[in-house]
Each structure stands twice: as C-alpha cells, then as structure tokens.
C-alpha cells in the first residue's frame, strides 16, 4: 500500500510532467473550440467587435448554395476516393504478400509515391494532367482518346483529383501488408485441413482478422478527405464552376478572404460535429463486424 504522502507526491509528479500538454490543450484546443462556438453566434470581421446575432449564421448557412455545394463536392470525393483507395490498397497488399519475385522492390515502389504529398504532389499532378503536354493525355492518346481538359472541365476536374488520390495508397498498403503478415499461419493451416479453399479461408479467416485495420483506415480516410484543402488551393481554386469547392476551402475563403470569421466558425463547428458523429457511428456499427483478438463478446 502506498501512503497518502507518497501518492500525493506521485500526483504532483504526474501533473508536472503532463503540464506542457495540459497548457497546450487548453490554449490551442479547448479554448479555440469554445471560442469558435462563440464566434459562430456572432458577426465578426476582426476590425469591429464581434456582434451577437444568435443563430443568424446557421440560418444563413441553411440557405447558402455555396455551403450545400461544398458539402456535395466533399461527399462526392469522399464516397468515391475513400472506398476505392481502401480496396485497392488491400488488393495490392494481398498481391505483394504472395510468393513472387521482387516483392521488396514492389513494396518500395508502391510506397515511395505516398511520400510525395502536399503541394509537391499537387503541382506534379497538375502537370501530369496538363491538356497540351501532360503525361496522362499522352497515355490516353496511345489508346486513341482525345485530349481531356482535366482541370478546365467541370465534368473531369473531380475525377482528376480522385485519380490523384490513388497515388498515395502506398501507406495504407503497408498497413494492410503488416496486418496480413500478422495472420497466424496455424489458423490458415487449420482452415486448409478443414477443407477450406484459398478464397474461403481468406473470407473467413484473414478478412475478420484484418477488420480492425480496415476500420482504422476507414476512419482516418474519412477524416482526411473531409479536410481536403491543398488540391483546391493549389490546383483548382475550387473551380471550374465550383466543381471542386471543398468544404474546408469554403471555410478558408469565408474566413480569410471574405473576413467573415463568425460565419466561417459556424461551418467549422458543423465540421467538428460531423467528424465526431461519423467516427462515433462507425465505431458503434463496427462492434458487430469487427473482430478483436482476445475480445470477450461476439
């Protein structure tokens, strides 16, 4: 048993060591979250004092076409890019996990591009999709397809961004690969002895064991794609015709170009609620499908 004096000392030590985070949490996270809730009920342009307008910003948002459009754009990107990226990175992980030559090379070559992210990647792909001299249209021309004006055509701009997003799937692939190699060989042997074919043992043994990895990647993928900004800022400026006007880009424009900090704060809060809610719902639903090793129930 520890004496009270000792545990009091331990408590002091704990708070001593944790204090940098605690201060940072309060100053850079908690207060900003609360402040942005407050600002969301005000009209605020930084020059004049914030003016309280109740739910004014929220009811304006409700009638704001640009706001709804940005949600539509973001969801479209999310619902296409996230599942496809997940599926492709799993498939490539499975392929690389086979007994084939040059596995190490394939692994590195697939992962390497995902290190080039942010503006470097955006510029590179902007150039690859260049209508006149870009690599992509050249590739298409080999198949007799006419040049596509990727980022100048509202039908294609979003697709170009989605194709771009596949380039970074190497990170996810590595995670799946680690998961695949963590599947105990004896389970697969047992399935084989029970007469399960390769597909069946994949479906009934490997996939359930991978499900926590899958879940984690899904949540991270969703959160990231809700916050797409770099591509819109660097390449499209939200265009053409607002077809890539992403949600966070909309916040940025409203706050830092139109100086409507209150209005933008309302959007920030909606984003926060959306991300929290989606994470929560996925976690809840996943209890039924996700297998945790050593888990007691189900």
């Amino acid at each position: 048993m520890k004496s009270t004096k000792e545990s009091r000392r331990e408590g002091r030590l704990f708070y001593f060591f944790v204090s940098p985070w605690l201060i940072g949490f309060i100053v850079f996270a908690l207060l900003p979250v609360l402040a942005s809730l407050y600002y969301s009920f005000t009209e605020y342009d930084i020059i004049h004092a914030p003016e309280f307008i109740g739910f004014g910003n929220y009811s304006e948002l409700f009638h704001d076409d640009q706001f709804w459009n940005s949600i539509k754009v973001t969801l479209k990107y999310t619902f296409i890019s996230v599942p496809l990226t997940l599926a492709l990175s799993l498939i490539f992980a499975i392929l690389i996990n086979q007994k084939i030559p040059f596995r190490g090379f394939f692994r590195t070559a697939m992962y390497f591009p995902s290190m080039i992210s942010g503006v470097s990647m955006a510029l590179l792909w902007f150039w690859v999709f260049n209508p006149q001299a870009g690599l992509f249209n050249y590739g298409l021309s080999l198949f007799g397809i006419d040049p596509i004006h990727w980022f100048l055509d509202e039908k294609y701009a979003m697709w170009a961004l989605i194709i771009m997003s596949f380039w970074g799937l190497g990170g996810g692939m590595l995670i799946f690969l680690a998961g695949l190699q963590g599947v105990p060989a004896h389970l697969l042997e047992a399935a084989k002895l029970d007469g399960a074919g390769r597909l069946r043992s994949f479906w009934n043994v490997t996939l359930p064991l991978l499900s926590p990895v899958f879940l984690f990647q899904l949540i991270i993928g969703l959160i990231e794609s809700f916050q797409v900004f770099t591509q819109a800022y660097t390449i499209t400026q939200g265009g053409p015709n607002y077809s890539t006007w992403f949600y966070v880009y909309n916040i940025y424009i409203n706050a830092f170009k139109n100086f409507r900090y209150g209005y933008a704060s309302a959007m920030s809060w909606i984003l926060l609620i959306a991300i929290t809610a989606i994470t929560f719902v996925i976690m809840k639903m996943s209890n039924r499908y996700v297998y945790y090793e050593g888990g007691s129930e189900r």
Partner: protein
Amino acid sequence: MSEVVLAQQLPPKRKKAKVELAQIVGFLILLLVTVAMIMPLLFMLSTSLKSTKEMLVFPPSMIPADFAWGNFKELFVNEEIKFGQQYMNSLIVAIMTVIGTVFSSSFVAFGFARYRARGSQFLFVLVLSTLMLPYPAIMIPQFLLFTKLGLHDSLLPLILPSFFASAYMIFLLKQFFSTLPNELYDAGRIDGCREIRLYWSLTLPLSGPVISTVAIFSFIWSWNDLLAPVLYLDSQENFTLPIGMAAMLSSKFRIAPWNLMMAASLLSVLPIVVLFAIAQRRFVQGIVLTGIK
C-alpha cells in the same frame, strides 16, 4: 508487427517450384501498377531538366534533348521566386517543430507512462480524443489569438504549438515507455536519481528508435503543411516552401514555369527521400504503429 514486414524478404520455403497462374497474373498486375505509379516521378524528373521550349512539346520526351541544369540555378537566383529563402524558412520551421515535438511529447508521455494520479486516466482519454480534432475547427480562434499577439506574418505560430506536445506522438511514445520495466526505475531511484533524471538520462537514451520515428514523422508533417502557413504568412520572403511553390503558378511568369516548378518539387521532396533512404525501417515501423494501434 513491423518486424514481420521487414522479415518478409526471407526466401520463400516451397516444396515444389510450381508456379501458379494466380501468381503470374498477380505479378503482371503489380508490374503494370508499379510502372504507372513511377511514371509521374520520371516525368517530374525529366521536366525539371527541360528547357521552357521543350517542356511544352507533345508527345513529351522522357529524356530531355539538352539537360537544362540551369533550371535549378534559376530557382535560387531568380528574385521573383525567392526559393532559397523559402527553403530555409521551411527547414527552420520543420527542425524547430521536430525539436519541440520530440522533447515536449516525450516529457508528457513519460508522465502518462510512469505516474498515476487522480484524473490521469481521464486526461489520457482526452489526449486520445484530440487525435480526431480537425485543424479547421480550431484554426480561426488560433489565428485570431496569434494575430492579437502580433505574430502575424512570422514563423512562430507554426512552431510554438509543437512545444506543447502532440497527441499522436504522446500516444506513440507512451506505448513504448510503458514497456520499459519498473525495476529499471527502482534501480535508478535507489541510486539516487531524481525523477527528472529518470526521464532525461534513463528513458530518453533507451528510446532511440521510437524517438526517431516521432522525429521523422513530425518533420514530414511540418514540411508538407500548407493550411497553417497560408493563414499566417503574407510576405513572399516569409513563405514556407509549399506556399512559395503554389505561388509560382500564379506569379508573373508569362508561361507557367513547369520546368522550374518540377525542379522545385524535386528539391522539396529531397529531404524526405534522404530520410527514407537512411531510415527506411523507422518509416515502415512508424506507418504500421500509428496505423494499427
């Protein structure tokens, strides 16, 4: 887990050298995809060495007719770009962020790993919950705060928060610190170590690998960040590399200088490639650890 990945290149034990159709198909698919993924990289490399005239020729040549090494020089001497200055800014921000993150996060993680106190569980849950906190949700008040402190158009708002620990890194480090045996610390205490020395002279030296993982990833995140620098930095000589490169597109050049931009992209990727080359193990481990846990 990562050890498993790294051990995968052991020669496969097979009784018979029977090659299956599925494996051939898999191999071909991988070959095709890998080529497709590497092509843009080669395109970047080749464009960075082309003259302005040659870069717009269709079909694009893979090997430039004349190697325009001058493109790289142009980046540094052209007064309108200020590439060198921006490169320095990015290095300063990234290195300071690494220093801040490594020391503050390991300090805090040590607290979480070693001591129990009233509320310690709750605070750790709080750490985990901030993993989800999207930057756009807090950026406006943070921006207003730093602006009121007169730090607008300076690099400080990008660096300062890292000295108050990062939730991701606390989590990563705490997992590792918890595996260090208690006996070690008891021995240290018997030898008369004060608690702060248990952190500084005992825990840190034992944690080289996990700390280099933290350092590498905080460097990359800082190096690639665009949104925060865009909010704070106004004047071109204060830009970090990502804004500077994005600004080259909209600058006064008559034709978008794709060759210069590709050269800039190449140079901006360089530190990350170097890190990858010297610490591939840490890279893989970092991805797998942050991914699975």
